[in-house]
């Protein structure tokens, strides 16, 4: 069979940002409108591809809803496998949505305070999308590095003292994490002789003796790298500083990047250490569960102690990571379903909050002082348009309401999607699914932590809201439509998640069921034939 064009769609989320990013380097900074338009076109293209992939993986087009793309047409264990299933398609969609919001927000000023914002943005998308699609551990390392290299540049975008200080720490931590990643990959290769994730999962069950010990050590070392990205306590101390220092659109993308670490852990752990994993089954779940809980506690305490909005948002992201790590550690299909819903809802809310931060600051300092300082440090000749001119009406009401909506979702209070997510988590925790199973002490501890962290989040956020919006004197800030539109986009998606929670949960249930059936996945990857020129299968 010839390869249908639709099979190549799996490659588009990696290829399109790569080509567009390279093209954007060539276009001079003076044509920022054109650069923005090309960048937006690419992001909208990615959004469309992600939507098609979500449709395809949930439909009948591919067996088991898994699309496999064999790079360079080598059959499975030898080639680098790119693979789209429901989970990765969903993450691609989330990436495209948040990228679109961050990009729209950056149009008026943020994309113009430094050079090559648009190229770096596209390369970041390439790395993130690649990490969601690849199913080869070393290729995953390459995409991680693409993502990180772009994020170093973006974090420093709008070069000033705070960003350089935060950047020095962020880059150093991530360089060390990358080295740890490599050690883990090397150990896994030494013990199993493969780096293809499907092949790896198939071989784990037969491991024994020294190889098994070496493999477990390799996975433990490898996961440290992902835990640094997803900011598990005590590996996540870099996160609040980096988030608070980054420019708002970049901070929104960073909020997404913590979820890349979570994605890999979730996929790898359910795949390799599933019940079918032989002697390795269940390895490390306890660590993830208790580590996740410690992370929630750390994030909650951090939120109470924060005075700045950037740090508040950073600690909110840490709580979200901690919750998801605990969910992976507890590992139960219904809980993972609810966890995926929580992932969507909390990522949207935190990204919206990151974008709101600078707008809220204008209530306190009308002169948009931060922007001025940034531009001074960068010695800009052509100053970007100040966000003045015709503003939108009722700016203060908009800010207050959006802030309250973010706070409700982050804290998990009704009526928005945060509540649905937390309700789903509690429901899954209280119904273990196995008949006659009792509920462990760890479950009660996790539920207590989730409730208390929600309470603390609402206290910390409301304290900030009261100080900003009810303190006198308040000057109504001027907001431009392009600044509020992305926030409205993200928050209305969150409302859509709430209203359409039923169908979304059904989709997530199917996604989670796929993740819990590694045998089907392994079989699908390893049995995909390479395609030959003359229309016959090679196998």
């Amino acid at each position: 069979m010839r390869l249908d064009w639709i099979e190549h769609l799996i490659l588009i989320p990696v290829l399109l940002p790569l080509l567009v990013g390279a093209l954007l380097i060539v276009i001079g900074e003076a044509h920022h409108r054109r650069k923005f338009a090309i960048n937006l076109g690419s992001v909208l293209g990615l959004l469309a591809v992600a939507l098609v992939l979500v449709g395809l993986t949930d439909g009948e087009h591919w067996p088991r809803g898994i699309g496999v793309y064999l790079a360079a047409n080598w059959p499975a264990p030898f080639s680098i496998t790119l693979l789209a299933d429901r989970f990765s398609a969903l993450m691609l969609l989330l990436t495209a949505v948040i990228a679109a919001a961050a990009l729209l927000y950056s149009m008026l000023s943020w994309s113009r305070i430094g050079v090559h914002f648009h190229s770096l943005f596209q390369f970041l998308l390439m790395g993130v999308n690649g990490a969601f699609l690849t199913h080869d551990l070393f290729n995953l390392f390459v995409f991680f590095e693409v993502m990180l290299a772009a994020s170093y540049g973006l974090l420093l975008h709008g070069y000033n003292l705070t960003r350089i200080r935060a950047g020095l720490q962020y880059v150093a931590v991530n360089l060390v994490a990358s080295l740890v990643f490599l050690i883990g990959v090397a150990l896994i290769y030494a013990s199993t002789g493969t780096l293809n994730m499907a092949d790896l999962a198939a071989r784990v069950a037969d491991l024994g003796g020294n190889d098994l010990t070496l493999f477990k050590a390799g996975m433990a070392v490898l996961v440290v790298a992902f835990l640094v990205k997803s900011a598990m306590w005590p590996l996540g101390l870099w996160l609040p500083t980096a988030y608070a220092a980054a420019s708002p659109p970049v901070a929104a993308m960073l909020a997404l990047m913590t979820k890349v670490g979570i994605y890999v852990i979730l996929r790898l752990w359910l795949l390799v250490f599933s019940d079918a994993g032989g002697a390795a089954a269940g390895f490390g779940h306890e660590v993830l569960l208790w580590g996740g809980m410690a992370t929630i506690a750390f994030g909650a305490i951090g939120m109470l102690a924060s005075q700045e909005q950037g740090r508040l948002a950073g600690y909110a992201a840490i709580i979200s990571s901690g919750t998801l790590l605990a969910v992976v550690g507890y590992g139960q299909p219904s809980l993972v379903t609810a966890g995926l819903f929580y992932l969507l809802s909390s990522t949207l809310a935190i990204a919206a909050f990151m974008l709101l931060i600078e707008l809220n600051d204008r209530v306190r300092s009308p002169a948009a002082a931060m922007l001025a300082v940034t531009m001074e440090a960068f010695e800009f000749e052509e100053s970007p348009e100040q966000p003045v001119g015709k503003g939108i009406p009722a700016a203060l009401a908009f800010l207050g309401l959006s802030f309250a909506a973010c706070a409700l979702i982050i804290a998990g209070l009704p009526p928005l999607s945060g509540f649905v997510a937390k309700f789903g988590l509690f429901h899954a925790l209280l119904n273990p699914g196995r008949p006659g199973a009792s509920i462990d002490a760890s479950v009660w501890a996790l539920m207590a932590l989730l409730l208390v962290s929600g309470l603390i989040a609402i206290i910390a956020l409301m304290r900030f809201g009261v100080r900003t919006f009810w303190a006198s004197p308040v000057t109504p800030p001027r907001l431009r439509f392009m600044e509020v539109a992305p926030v409205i986009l993200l928050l209305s998606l969150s409302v859509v998640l709430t209203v359409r929670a039923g169908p979304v949960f059904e989709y997530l249930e199917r996604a989670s069921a796929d993740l819990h059936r590694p045998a089907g996945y392994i079989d699908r990857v390893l049995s995909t034939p390479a395609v030959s020129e003359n229309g016959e299968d090679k196998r």
Partner: protein
Amino acid sequence: MNTIIALSIGVLFGSGIWLILRPRTFQMIIGLLLMSYAVNLFIFIMGRLAVNRPPLTPAGTVPDPAALTDPLPQALVLTAIVIGFATTALYLVLMIGSRGVTGTDHVDGKEPDQ
């Protein structure tokens, strides 16, 4: 041979860890470099140590696995070297930028007594 390689990786990595815990950016970057050398060696020996075994077969011959060494770790280590080199260069730029803006080479961007 195994002992020598293991010792040298250990020494490189240990020195690297000690250096990245130091407060000056120059020490940081040398530490990162030493650690990446250690990691590259580590990946390399994961294909098992062997003397006088090529990773490639001449064209047209039937390969004999016993006479060959594993080529994959060598390919991996090449990629890792390139990526490590690029990211270290990026850190160097950041380090110089930090020195220019803050006037100090302390990793916190200020001298500890300030």
